[in-house]
């Protein structure tokens, strides 16, 4: 999904709060205009910033994984050189407000020492092992270089940390690639066109063996060293600059993909626990563990097929799962595979295998979120109409909606128009010969509603952040005069605003990242 208007405004706000308005200005140009070269950015920002300042800002944003440099191969026969451009990674900017969620995952799955190493990478963007050790030495309670190394190894083994991507990958010229493909057959097997951001990230990301090395040596003879034998041929020409520092140490950064995957799985288990029961949630959690390593991308619609025995084996590994007998696990799978008028199937059973349907599970949470907003904002009658139209999945005329929702025919058009004005309904006019007044037809278009909701949630997150800043400003003004009671009140307000923003971010991930 392309970034919405308030997605951009929110991302710029995050950068402003963390790095200042000068940096966010550069970021905003990249967000609104797409990839630009440093010269182009410099022309846009002058005379407020010099060219060197722009370069420094771009380095800072790259350091914090918010921007990726790349270039496009000039056409065959052309004498022009490839210009380095910079593309903003909006998702990584939005991840910046989730760092404490990422830390919590590592603290729970591994240990607090690994959590401390991760925190170092999150706050600095990317570091070498040497820099992590230095950072540990400078801290109040150093744990020692061996502990740091072991922690980093665990983080890499679990894919929470990765080697940084190629600094300036070169993309092949897309027109030339397409021209090379001959005939309609070739055109048919071409996959869905990727966005430029997807192409850049794919080109920059090294193969898994390089990205998550098993062997953890740091000298130049090691398998990790940046010599050509480690790099597949297809990617060699993309490596203009080493993804390591001048001491040939590997540079590490948090692997946001893995954190989002874990949060996605966690959210799915919670959704199933709420809608079904604890037993089904335990079984689903086991299925997600079995299938995780096979997931090729985060937003995968379905898991790989898995057998009952592999699911049961995984269930037995957990403390909660040990109380479940095989028959109970089978019963849970039947429940998860059942479709009813109020819940879709969460698991698909086929040929003695079971597949997790992520899309189906997440759609339930999205539907609940949307309907709750419709109820609160437009009222109970609108809620009935919206649910009726969602179920119908097609255009329906005004009076038919009034009949189905048992609402006054004279009031129904106003209610529908309110929802339409705010982008929650799609409307069409139908002119019929002989009728002076056209019929109005209404429909819920899920894609449009989802995008509208997401934009509003970004807007709301921004509002929570701005209101918190506003309350803190007020706190400074009254602090000299305040009583203990007033202090408590102000702190409670701050807690409510922060915790609401924290929970709202979970909803944003359901609509955008999962």
């Amino acid at each position, binding site marked *: 999904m392309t970034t919405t208007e308030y997605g951009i405004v929110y991302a710029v706000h995050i950068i402003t709060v963390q790095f200042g308005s000068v940096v966010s200005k550069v970021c905003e140009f990249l967000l609104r205009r797409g990839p630009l070269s440093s010269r182009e950015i410099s022309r846009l920002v002058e005379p407020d910033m010099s060219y060197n300042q722009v370069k420094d800002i771009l380095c800072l944003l790259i350091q914090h994984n918010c921007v990726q440099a790349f270039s496009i191969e000039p056409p065959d026969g052309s004498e022009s050189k490839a210009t380095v451009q910079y593309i903003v990674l909006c998702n990584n900017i939005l991840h910046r407000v989730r760092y404490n969620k990422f830390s919590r995952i590592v603290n729970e799955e591994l240990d607090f020492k690994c959590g401390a190493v991760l925190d170092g990478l999150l706050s600095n963007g990317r570091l070498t092992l040497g820099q992590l050790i230095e950072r540990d030495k400078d801290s109040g309670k150093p744990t020692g270089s061996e502990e740091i190394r072991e922690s980093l190894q665990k983080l890499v083994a679990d894919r929470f940390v990765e080697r940084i991507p190629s600094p300036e990958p070169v993309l092949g010229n897309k027109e030339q690639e397409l021209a090379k493909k001959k005939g309609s057959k070739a055109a048919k097997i071409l996959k869905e066109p990727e966005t430029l951001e997807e192409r850049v990230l794919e080109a920059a990301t090294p193969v898994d063996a390089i990205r998550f090395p098993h062997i953890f040596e740091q000298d130049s003879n090691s398998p990790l060293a940046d010599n050509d034998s480690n790099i597949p041929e297809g990617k060699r020409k993309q490596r203009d600059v080493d993804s390591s520092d001048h001491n040939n140490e590997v540079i590490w950064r948090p692997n946001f993909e893995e954190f989002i995957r874990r949060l996605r799985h966690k959210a799915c288990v919670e959704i199933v626990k709420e809608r079904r029961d604890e037993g089904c949630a335990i079984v689903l959690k086991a299925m997600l563990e079995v299938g995780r390593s096979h997931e090729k991308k985060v937003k995968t619609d379905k898991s790989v097929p898995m057998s009952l025995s592999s699911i049961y084996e995984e269930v037995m590994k957990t403390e909660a799962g040990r109380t479940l007998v095989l028959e109970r696990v089978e019963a849970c799978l039947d429940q998860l595979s059942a479709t009813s008028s109020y819940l879709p199937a969460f698991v698909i059973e086929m040929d003695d295998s079971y597949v997790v349907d992520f899309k189906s599970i997440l759609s339930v949470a999205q539907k609940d979120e949307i309907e709750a*907003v419709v109820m609160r904002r437009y009222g*109970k009658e609108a809620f*009935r109409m919206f649910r009726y139209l969602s179920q119908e999945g097609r255009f329906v005329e005004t009076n038919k909606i009034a009949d189905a929702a048992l609402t006054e025919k004279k009031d129904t058009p106003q209610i529908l128009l309110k929802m339409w004005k705010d982008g929650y309904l799609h409307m069409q006019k139908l002119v019929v010969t002989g009728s002076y007044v056209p019929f109005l037809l209404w429909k819920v278009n899920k894609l449009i509603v989802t995008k509208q909701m997401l934009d509003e949630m970004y807007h709301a997150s921004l509002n*929570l952040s701005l209101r918190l800043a506003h309350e803190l400003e007020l706190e400074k003004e009254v602090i000299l005069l305040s009583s203990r009671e007033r202090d408590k009140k102000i702190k409670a307000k701050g807690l409510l605003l922060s915790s609401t923003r924290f929970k709202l971010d979970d909803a944003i991930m359901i609509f955008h990242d999962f």
Partner: protein
Amino acid sequence: MDKRKRPDPKSLGGDINEQHEKKVLDMIRKNQGMGATTSELKSDKTIPPTLITRLVNSLKKKDLIREVPNMNNKGYKHFIAMEFQTSKELTGGDWYTDGSLDLSKIEDLKTKCVMILERQRHRHRVVTLDVICGYFDKQENLSVDQTKEILKNLILDNEIMEVKSNGLNEFAATRIGELCYKLAGKNSGNGEARAGTSFASMPCGACPSIGLCSPDGVISPGTCVYFQKWLDF
């Protein structure tokens, strides 16, 4: 000299008018519950169109016809003979009385339905469609279709859910495949913001002016009255 009384102009054509009136009444009666509109009456070439309004008013005064608005086509009025019940097509449906939706009746029926399901929930049982239809037929004189409409409305309210019996546990007293109903449960929240719905439970989620709100605008998070109320604890 006595002034000669002028003859009453109406009495001269009285017989003709009575005939026209009878014709109009026949046309209206012919269509029973649907009656006839002014334009339909005017389509009869034997009656002067200019007389139609007078004839209709006369019939109304004599309490032989009544005027009913068409709920589906506003601006059209139908004249219906008093002997006939107004057709559902004109009233808008079973739940309309005198052109208005009988909301209190509908809410009352819905409440009763929920109470039936509430009683069975304590016994960990569902209620079949047959049982609900039987109850409303006896107590409220509702048809099966009317009962189904009430149930559909409660489903849209997210207060109840429709399930198919599998013969086990809460479905033990029902046939496999039979349509049953039960309360949606607290987790569904009856459409209210449930535990997992975070956006609806904060001011911006319910705000009708979110489209007008901006960081530095007249309506902004700093000046927002909804935020003020929400934080005023």
